[in-house]
């Protein structure tokens, strides 16, 4: 990569230099005309040929262009595209502006190799302002307006309840990113079963920062709620997500007479790519009766070395996500802003941080997603898929009915695929699956 392209100060957008050209470009870009610059024309022509974006999707075009320029190390072009993006972007505007804002930030950091620094700054800011209350509000509101997370919850709970049916001592190992909002409904289901209410031990594997900020409250609420439900309950926290592959049965408190279920919602993607197979293996050693995995349908992993490809995929996924947020939430929703900020950090870590030794943002927050099919391949090393029963599928369908239109359920096609897909406007977005050893 080139040496630092800009002086990282606001004035780095050297106004005077690119002014004229930039203005022309801006106008041209907007009007979707061929720009005069020769360099640009090549990329533009190729772009307009297979342009997946509609006329209103200026952000995607600009961003893709910029990513391409980055990979080609075309510094002047990078410069001027980033300048344009900076002009047009806004984290508080419409979808396009938001995408432009978050992605151009990532591009900028990538160009200036400031990715990790920026990420750490954002993370610490977030951590400071994060509280149980804000996290709770955010997640509950999100679940209220969108089935993005509840889809996985309902499917997983259904699979867990069926797999552990009849057991009297349950132990669920929860490695999720949904702040335990999955468990109240499970507790209620356990309590309303006709037969004996089993004991439930819940071990949550999380990061150190999470434990510090929210786990205490979550523990209180869960314990209280379980008492309310009349379910004998224990809650444990293991704050060692970063070394998940190395955890042992003892460290997780798994006892021999317990029926174990492992629940991973948005979890496996937070593991370093190189450790993922080890983690799968580790999960197998716990001897669970069922492992539920829920992930988002996006692939940032196989294209790790190809920046443009990775960028494209990232853009595609987050464009969908932001659009979904826009259509689900009220326009002036704090919760939505919080979610978007989290996305912003995630985008930054995927695009601008190096995963590998020394990359500090690779420990906890890197979220290199993989598609369901890819996870299937990994999980098949140690587990075999369990289909969701008709009842669970019906439950999920009923769940989706309670939300706005646009969501639907797709069963997997083909043999090498299993699980359920949640689709938003026909695009698969979330994948839920269940596995047994």
């Amino acid at each position: 990569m080139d040496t630092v392209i800009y002086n990282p100060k606001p004035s780095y957008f050297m106004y005077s230099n690119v002014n004229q050209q930039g203005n022309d470009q801006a106008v041209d870009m907007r009007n979707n005309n061929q720009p005069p610059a020769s360099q640009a024309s090549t990329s533009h022509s190729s772009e307009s040929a297979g342009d997946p974006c509609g006329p209103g999707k200026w952000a995607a075009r600009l961003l893709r262009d910029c990513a391409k320029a980055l990979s080609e190390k075309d510094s002047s072009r990078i410069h001027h595209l980033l300048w344009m993006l900076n002009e047009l972007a806004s984290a508080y505007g419409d979808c396009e502006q938001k995408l432009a804002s978050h992605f151009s930030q990532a591009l900028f950091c990538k160009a200036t190799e400031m990715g990790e620094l920026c990420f750490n700054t954002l993370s610490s800011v977030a951590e400071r302002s994060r509280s149980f209350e804000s996290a709770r509000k955010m997640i509950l509101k999100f679940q209220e307006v969108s089935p993005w997370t509840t889809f996985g919850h309902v499917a997983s709970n259904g699979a867990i309840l069926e797999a552990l049916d009849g057991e009297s001592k349950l132990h669920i190992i929860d490695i999720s990113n949904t702040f335990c909002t999955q468990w109240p409904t499970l507790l209620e289901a356990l309590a309303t079963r006709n037969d004996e209410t089993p004991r439930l031990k819940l071990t949550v594997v999380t990061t150190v920062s999470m434990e510090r900020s929210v786990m205490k409250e979550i523990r209180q609420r869960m314990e209280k709620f379980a008492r309310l439900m009349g379910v004998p309950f224990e809650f444990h926290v293991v704050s060692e997500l970063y070394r998940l592959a190395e955890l042992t049965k003892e460290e997780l408190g798994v006892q021999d007479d317990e029926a174990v279920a492992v629940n991973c919602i948005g979890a496996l993607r937070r593991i370093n790519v190189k450790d993922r197979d080890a983690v799968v293996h580790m999960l197998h050693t716990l001897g669970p009766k069922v492992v539920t995995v829920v992930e988002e349908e996006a692939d940032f992993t196989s294209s790790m070395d190809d920046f443009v490809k990775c960028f494209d995929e990232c853009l595609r996924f987050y464009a969908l996500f932001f659009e979904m947020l826009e259509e689900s939430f009220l326009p002036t929703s704090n919760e939505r802003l919080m979610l978007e900020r989290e996305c912003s950090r995630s985008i930054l870590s995927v695009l601008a941080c190096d995963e590998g030794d020394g990359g500090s943002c690779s420990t906890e927050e890197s979220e290199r997603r993989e598609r369901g099919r890819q996870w299937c391949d990994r999980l098949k090393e140690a587990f075999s898929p369990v289909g969701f029963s008709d009842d669970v599928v019906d439950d999920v369908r009923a769940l989706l009915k309670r939300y706005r239109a646009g969501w639907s359920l797709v069963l997997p096609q083909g043999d090498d695929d299993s699980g359920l897909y949640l689709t938003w406007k026909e695009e698969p977005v979330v994948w839920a699956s269940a596995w047994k050893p």
Partner: protein
Amino acid sequence: MLEKMAGEAISGAFNQETVVGSNPPVVKKKRNLPGNPDPEAEVIALSPKTLMATNRFLCEICGKGFQRDQNLQLHRRGHNLPWKLRQRTSKEPKKRVYVCPEKTCVHHHPSRALGDLTGIKKHFCRKHGEKKWKCEKCSKRYAVQSDWKAHSKTCGTREYRCDCGTLFSRRDSFITHRAFCEALAEETARVTAAYKMNNANAGNISYPFMGTSLRSNMVQHFSSVFKPIPSSNGAMDQTRPGLSLWMDQESQTNQAMSNNLTELHQMGSSSIGTVYADPFSNPPHTDYQVNWAFGNKLSSTNAGELTSTTPPLTNLKEVGSPRLASAPSLYSTQHYHHQLPPAIMSATALLQKAAEIGATSTNPSFLESYGLKCNNNQIQDGNKYNDLFSPSLIPTNLGSDLDNSVRDLTTLNHLQMYPRKRPKTLNDDAEEGQTRDFLGVGVQTICPSSINGWI
């Protein structure tokens, strides 16, 4: 549920069929339910096949089968039988009771037989049958078609209310919310329990809110003014709402605020106090679990407790005089007469003053809460989660009562102009304490505004 030993009465009767166990305890529920089958009744044990057969009653003339005896009789009339034959040939003088054919079932035993054939059929299906009927909306399953139909009618129309006042149309989001809302209740309970009675004097009672977003510091605002007048309404005695909670807040009260509030309360007492039932008829007991949300204070396990105040809304009409004797009132008018500067302010002036203090609306849910709660005139134990999750249907009758009382009080019109800033979030921070609608006068709408969760 009461349990009675059936004893000798039963063992004597069931010598016709099947086993007669030692005297099992019977449960008294309704009139004809298993608890007390008629000792003289004949016990019938049908096989599952016979039980589920649809046409057990056959017409002897044409052989047509009917599900019910009454239907058969109706049919027989159509055959124009001579009078003699009209009588049922084998009229059963004895009452019949049926046992469940499922051996492991409680109702298999003659002493727990069910008196109704339809009843035993339904029971058998429900408990031991396959659940063939499924609700489309929530995918809940039923074995008995009539159950399923009944459920489908109401599914999705119910609303669930959390103690904090938020209303939900979906059960799952209600449950999740409630789990995370819990801590509020617990804190409240602790506070209430810790309260000491000696705070019961001199306007230490704060105005009880039913707002969703009330926080403890909000309570502070309204601290010193109100003292409940001992209510003549006996029902009130059941609930000692956590005035203790309020009083506990008391100790942290900002005196400056309370002065403002007292003035406001003065107005309130003549009108508002009359609107709302006063659950605090007597100095609070420590064991009362305040059920509403005071910001972070909610009673989790006693969802129903607050409710046990029957709203003496009907008494509200007697408002007017400072001495709200018969109308349980939140304000001790006597009290504040002693204590407060007799500032005579017009209602509008008071409103303006209150506007300065600010308000966020306590929800109309406050009103509803009273109403709703009144339906459960009992203290519920912590683990009756059924009650907690049973949807709180807003009783329409309460609404009308409220309306009536409200209309009676013209001053309430002023209150409707009262600026209401709804807190956007469940738990606002302390800074927001300045702006609360302590009056909780959401009289414009009886129903809370938020259906989808957050206020």
